[in-house]
């Protein structure tokens, strides 16, 4: 029996525009006093009309372009009709027939995952169930939401998670959303079924997944559950039917929500209150021009500098971090320098918050040039101090006398004194050459820590011969 998981993801990303999708209300809603960011439009009051947010439309197109999509120059909004207490108008304004962007792709570790669509819609309000009562908060109602729908090209929970992380990185690179899964500004609904030999198990859409680990675990659970289920009942997928299961993160199980539902009839039709939205080729190109180099391109570039896969991914993780790396690197193609910077960035500098403005590439270059005269722990210490004080690390090293003394003449004199002062240690060495460590320590101490340990060992060994 060959089992292949078939996984598609529907990802929702809340745009961080100042105002909402169809009105001027403040779009922030996380930890905001309920129903304070509302107006007749986002409350769906009688007679109120939606006016689309231009920035949100542009950002949706930007994301579409970043995901390699074709942009529909003539796009329009539609109404998706359904009843729910937190749906103020009884319909959601979204896109169906002509989304802003279609037919994209995303490289996930060398596999091209197809993107079906990237469309723009409005978020709903929030229902809170408190002690048998339901409270409604419309602060989130009308917040712009981009929906990214993948084709069912993903074949493992890990790959799904990586896809999601890639989307998150791209969205953050584009600076159009916080894409914070825990805060709900990024949400994910996986659809999972299995190909078992030549048949398919029923489609299951998983709701309420609220973390990256959740995505991983929920899909894995579903793969296991469907395998077992199929072995028990042998039921295969029926056309147009989809079961919805919720993810219970505490129990780590999915549970049945709606069974074998035909595709719900949302009575979509073009939103008559909003004229079709037309973007010219020039406008689309102008949007494309605002897209920075994206993570996948950066990873390729970094690996060409002989950085490890791990390091390249880490540097490309977010735009600010990679920008710092590239600022320090300047035009250099020296793999040693790249590695040197990487070690400092993902080492000592990762422990504090750094901003690109305070980074002086020259200081890194200076340190790199003198790295053989400084111990690695001293380099780490210097780069931190240099960043915090804005001083050239070499000046700091000079002041604190941190350069390793490699002047063998001076060291030799010092070594003779150390040997003379420690006859017992010298005697020990004669019996056991491993005990030289003690004498090295003494000489280092005598040099004030500035001696190069390798040079110290060489001198001592020579004198003790």
């Amino acid at each position: 029996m060959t089992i292949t998981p078939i996984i598609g993801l529907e990802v929702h990303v809340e745009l961080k525009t100042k105002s909402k999708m169809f009105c001027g209300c403040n779009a922030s809603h996380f930890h905001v006093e309920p129903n304070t960011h509302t107006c007749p439009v986002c409350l769906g009051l009688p007679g109120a009309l939606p006016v689309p947010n231009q920035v949100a439309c542009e950002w949706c197109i930007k994301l579409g372009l970043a995901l390699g999509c074709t942009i529909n120059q003539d796009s329009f909004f539609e109404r998706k009709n359904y009843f729910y207490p937190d749906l103020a108008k009884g319909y959601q304004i979204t896109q169906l027939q002509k989304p802003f962007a279609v037919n994209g792709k995303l490289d996930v570790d060398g596999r091209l995952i197809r993107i079906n669509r990237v469309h723009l819609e409005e978020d709903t309000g929030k229902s809170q169930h408190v002690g048998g009562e339901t409270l409604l908060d419309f602060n989130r109602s009308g917040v712009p939401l981009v929906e990214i729908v993948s084709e069912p090209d993903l074949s493992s929970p890990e790959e799904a998670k990586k896809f999601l992380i890639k989307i998150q990185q791209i969205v953050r690179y584009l600076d159009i959303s916080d894409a914070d899964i825990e805060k709900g500004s990024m949400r994910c609904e996986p659809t999972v079924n299995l190909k078992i030999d030549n048949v398919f198990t029923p489609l299951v859409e998983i709701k309420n997944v609220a973390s990256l680990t959740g995505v991983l675990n929920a899909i894995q659970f579903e793969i296991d559950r469907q395998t077992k289920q199929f072995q028990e009942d042998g039921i295969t997928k029926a056309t147009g039917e989809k079961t919805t299961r919720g993810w219970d993160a505490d129990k780590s199980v999915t549970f049945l929500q709606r069974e074998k539902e035909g595709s719900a009839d949302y009575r979509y039709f073009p939103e008559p209150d909003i004229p079709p939205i037309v973007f010219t080729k020039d406008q689309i190109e102008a949007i494309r021009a605002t897209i920075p180099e994206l993570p996948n391109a950066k990873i390729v570039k970094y690996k060409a500098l002989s950085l490890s896969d791990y390091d390249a991914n880490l540097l490309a993780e977010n735009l600010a971090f990679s920008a710092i790396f590239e600022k320090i690197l300047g035009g250099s193609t020296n793999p040693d320098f790249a590695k040197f910077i990487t070690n400092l960035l993902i080492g000592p500098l990762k422990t504090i918050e750094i901003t690109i403005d305070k980074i002086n590439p020259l200081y890194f270059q200076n340190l790199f040039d003198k790295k053989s005269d400084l111990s690695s722990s001293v380099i780490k210490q210097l780069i931190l101090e240099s960043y915090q004080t804005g001083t050239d690390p070499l000046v700091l090293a000079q002041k604190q006398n941190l350069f390793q003394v490699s002047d063998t003449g001076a060291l030799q004199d010092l070594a003779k004194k150390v040997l003379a002062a420690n006859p017992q240690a010298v005697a020990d060495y004669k019996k056991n050459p491993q005990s030289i460590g003690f004498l090295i320590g003494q000489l280092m101490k005598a040099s004030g820590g500035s001696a190069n340990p390798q040079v110290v060992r060489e001198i001592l060994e020579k004198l003790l011969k």
Partner: protein
Amino acid sequence: MLLDKSILELAAGLRQDEFTSVDLVNECYDNIAKYNDKINAFITILPRETAIKQAQSVKLTSPLSGLPFVIKDCFNTSGITTTAASHVLKNYIAPYDATVYKKLLTAGAILIGKMNMDAWGHGGSSENTDFGPVKNPWDTTRVAGGSSGGPAAAISARMAVFAIGEDTGGSIRNPAAWCNITGLKVTYGRVSRYGSIAYASSFDTVGPMAKTAQDCAIVLETIAGVDPYDATSSPISVPSYSTLLNKKVSDLTIGIPDEFFQAGLDPEVKTAVLKVAEDLKNAGAKIKNLSMPLFDYGLAIYYLIGPSETSSNLARYDGIRYGQGREFFTDETTRRILIGTYALSAGYYDAYYKKAQQVRTLFIEEYKKALTKCSVLLQPITPTQPPKIGELMSDPLQNFLADIYTTSQNPIGVPSLAFPCGFTKTGLPIGAQLVGPMFSEDLLLNIGYQYQQLTDNHLKSPLSKGDLEGLKPKP
């Protein structure tokens, strides 16, 4: 009576201290007190004292300053009940103002009432209301027309200087015809819809209702224009309509589409409407008979797309936020919601909603073509004389057919001016409509004005005819 005067005469009189805004307000309230019980035009009558206070302090900054007006109860007016004539919104007080209302307040006009109508605009007789039917001031056993029946009846019975109505498929024109007033269905996008409770969003238009074309021109100047709150409002600049009324009609060709004058049209209505062509011809216009073979599909397009949109627009009244549940929708409204829901449903969408939109596109071409052969089209407004109260309500299909001539323009978006063109032998008003290309309000008002210089039908009021039934002043 001051209220027989035109807006320009009133504006001049106020400035020359012949009378005051308070006198005007008092005259309106006196007429309301005398006649509203008979015709039931109002849903909310604002307190007289409030209106008088406004009148006392009014500054004459625009031709509408100090003039009392009424609006259909589908317009949001903050602090004042807005019901759309439905108990679903019984006691609903809007927290914001419709753009049209705001503009009129800025112009210094004085709101005195919110008017009765078919609930949500669903109807052509103002009987589909939870506040009792509006009765025709010319014969109170008959309907006033609808859905803007309240505003039309009030202007007719001289209860206000002008009114704001809303036309989705004839809602301004039909009651204008039956109540003997002038009403303008504007080009879609000419006047902001913000704050007007939606019936069918792609058909809804907000327009003036008054005694004359000139009055409508003055009101339109004030309320038209692009609105940042309505994405469908047009950025096309607003002409000063009232200064463009004097052109002679001699350069114009009046088109008469045969299909609008076939069987089903009351002979008296037909004669009166065709008399308009004759009058304009006598004034120098050319007359051209033409054909609009797609006419038959107009009603079908309207009654598929309109209910589809309304089924969605009324979804927000889900019983959670407005106090009253969906069980308060009337049978007529429920019927339209069901038709629309059906037309949009999976499996039916292509056959109904989508097909209707396709035919709508053809229909737009049909109108364009017809309007290349003539300057404007002359059409009847209603196929019949005002029916007796109850007649249309007992026959839903007949009710739909009452809109046959007025549902053909809204899917296109073109403007149409409705104006009085005569009376039946029994003394009931008859109206005609002139339909022009998109944004040709200036032309329509110009022709309307010229026609009204030649005729006096529009000057007749049910009050001046003391013999008309039902309007004897209360003792």
